[in-house]
């Protein structure tokens, strides 16, 4: 997966940086294999986005971020990209309103959920979440 595909709020680990005219600058700024990157926010038009690298905020265009190969941390997988299995909710990356909405469903940090055939089950019941919501829920695989 490349960095530009990672949803806002997620944390990832860098695997490799592909060749490009800005490769040296990316490496120098701290985007090296095994370093952690958090996607902080997008600009009003969605591109570029801000990333946190060693506590510094770095803006990258999506075309630039696409030269960076990353993978999710085991305890920080966005629900939108999780494959089938059993999970624990490890974090939410959103504001008050989202938290209210999600707690109405009974979901909290440390809730157990499972995914079967792409459907989400909570306490044995199937629940429906929009893609935007799924991007804001992070899971740890059990």
């Amino acid at each position: 997966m490349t960095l530009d595909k990672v949803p806002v709020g997620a944390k990832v680990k860098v695997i490799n940086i592909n060749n490009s005219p800005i490769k040296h600058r990316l490496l120098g700024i701290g985007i090296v294999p095994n370093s952690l990157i958090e996607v902080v926010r997008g600009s009003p038009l969605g591109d570029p986005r801000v990333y946190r690298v060693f506590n510094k905020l770095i803006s990258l265009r999506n075309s630039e971020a696409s030269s960076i190969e990353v993978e999710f941390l085991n305890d920080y997988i966005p629900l939108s990209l999780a494959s089938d299995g059993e999970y624990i909710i490890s974090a939410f990356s959103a504001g008050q309103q989202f938290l209210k909405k999600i707690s109405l469903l009974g979901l909290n940090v440390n809730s157990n959920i499972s995914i079967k055939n792409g459907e989400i089950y909570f306490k044995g019941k199937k629940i429906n979440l929009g893609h935007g919501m799924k991007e804001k829920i992070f899971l740890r695989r059990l």
Partner: protein
Amino acid sequence: MVITVGLVGNPNVGKTSLFNRLVGARQYVANWPGVTVSKIEGATTWLNDTLHIIDLPGTYTLSSQSADEKVTRDFLFYTPPNVTVLIADSVNPQQSFYLLIELLELNSNVILVMNSIDEAKKLGIKINKFELQKHFGVPVVFTSAKTGEGIDELKNLIVEVARGKHIKKVVFDYGDLESIILKIEKEIPDSILTNKRFAAIKFLEEDKEIQKILSPYIKIDYSIVKETSTLIPSIRYSHVENIIKEAYSGKSLNYQRTINDKIDHILTHKFFGIPILLVIMYLVFKFTFDVIQPISDYLESLLSLLSSYIKSFGNNTFISLISDGVINGVGGVLVFIPNIFALFFALGILEESGYLPRAAFVVDRIMYKMKLSGRSFISLLLGFGCNVSSIMSTRGLPDEKERIGTILVSPFISCSARLPVYLMITSIFFNKYKGEVLFSIYALSILITALSAYIINKLFFKGEDVPLVMELPRYRIPTLRNIFIYMWNKGSHFIQKAGTIIFAASIVIWFLSYFPSKGHIETSYAAYLGKIFVHLLKPLGFNWQIATALLFGGVAKEVIVSSLSMLYGFAESDLISAQSLLSQSISNISAYALLVFILLYIPCFATLASIKSETGSWKWVLFSVLYSFTIAYIFSLLVVILGNLIF
């Protein structure tokens, strides 16, 4: 003894503020040879020595990819200063320490400055100086450019290091790669490069310049180099993290995070981000061109009083030279000064506070299509006030491709000086459709600017993108001291460089309009030139009076109005006689072509002088003149041809 000192550091670590602390306002700004990167130097005496300090462009690495990086690298590599001072950010030191390791591979007379120590203390971060000294093998000093803490200690250290004290060479180990590094070191002939370890490491990092120099001598499987090019930076960062573990303790950085994030949440907000930017730019505009304008107007009226006072002594060549030539020339420079200083005052606040990169971030998507980045948006927007301001503000752009591109297209932004000319022509020819016609001219202005940015990038920079790898620094409260130094440096640069050219051009124009007939403009050399020039403009339907007025418009676009009134012999405010005289001599279609021509044809002298002073080369000035004239001619001709077909 004169000690040369190079200041090195990442962007946004407070390097410039520290430089200001060291040398005060006595700074000299120029360009590095061959590029448009600013070279800032200053000197100060300390005890019995003179410290000659060079503020090198901010960089994250010592590779040779961008113009800024190359300037810093080449300076340290080919002409190493007596002492190199690395300025690190105490709060977020990782990237700074990375650069320090690279620097220590290159030079050994290094001092590590831990800047913003006041912020670190406030956040509860504890830094062990002796651990840093032990691991890097260089003297360390804690400073704050804000409070002045540690500055004297730094000056003392500079003198001591220049005399050979304090250095303990530390070699950073690359593990398994050491054998390859050693092998390459051995293969480098003594006559080529002396700093072999640095060269070998850079070779393995795929540094293009070093590879070009060394490739004839090095036998290596290049698939190894592909791997080492990311492995070496990784190893460096693991050194950095180990050193930080040893030297740093106390609180983490969560507090600073939340405050910054909250401000960012508003200023780069999905819906409010762009409106907030526009409001801030409106305020900058208002301040630069409106609030300050009375000072310019006052200066102008003062000069015209002086000029008429001198004229009252009689009418001869000398008096005309003084009153029309010299005073006009001085005036031509003076009227810009309040605006330029006001502009840099406002930009200084935006830059110091940390807002400028956010603004670039917010609008980058729009500029990307023109092969520019969000950073040039602000420069171009300023062009609606004055193209000179626009060009002067490009000094803040970190990428050279973008800087040249922005400088060359900014004259197409319709500046405020062109408005009186549009108003005169539209009220004579298109009184009923004034708004629509003006709108079409401004729309054309934006269109040609965007198109030219694209064309110029394709022509000179092979269509390469301007990258936006950019740090959004912590917000800071700007200090007046830094803003005034910023304003003074950039403003005085304009007076020196652009001022002389504007002044000289004004004298030439006086000469052309005064001789040979002693002030009768209709029979002057200028009118004569206009009559030659008109042959070129015939297809557009212009007559010699218009051609001459356009020549004078080269001085400043608003001069076209007064020139036309002189050449036709009507009072500037007398629209009715202007109407009857002008509408007899050119058609409506040609009048619209004239509007297009005035928008696009050659930049005024002040703008050309700024292009020269900012790019440092007459080549770009010449290109600008030829390119804009060609574009103006093509588009005006299109107007005439299409107009005649339709109407």
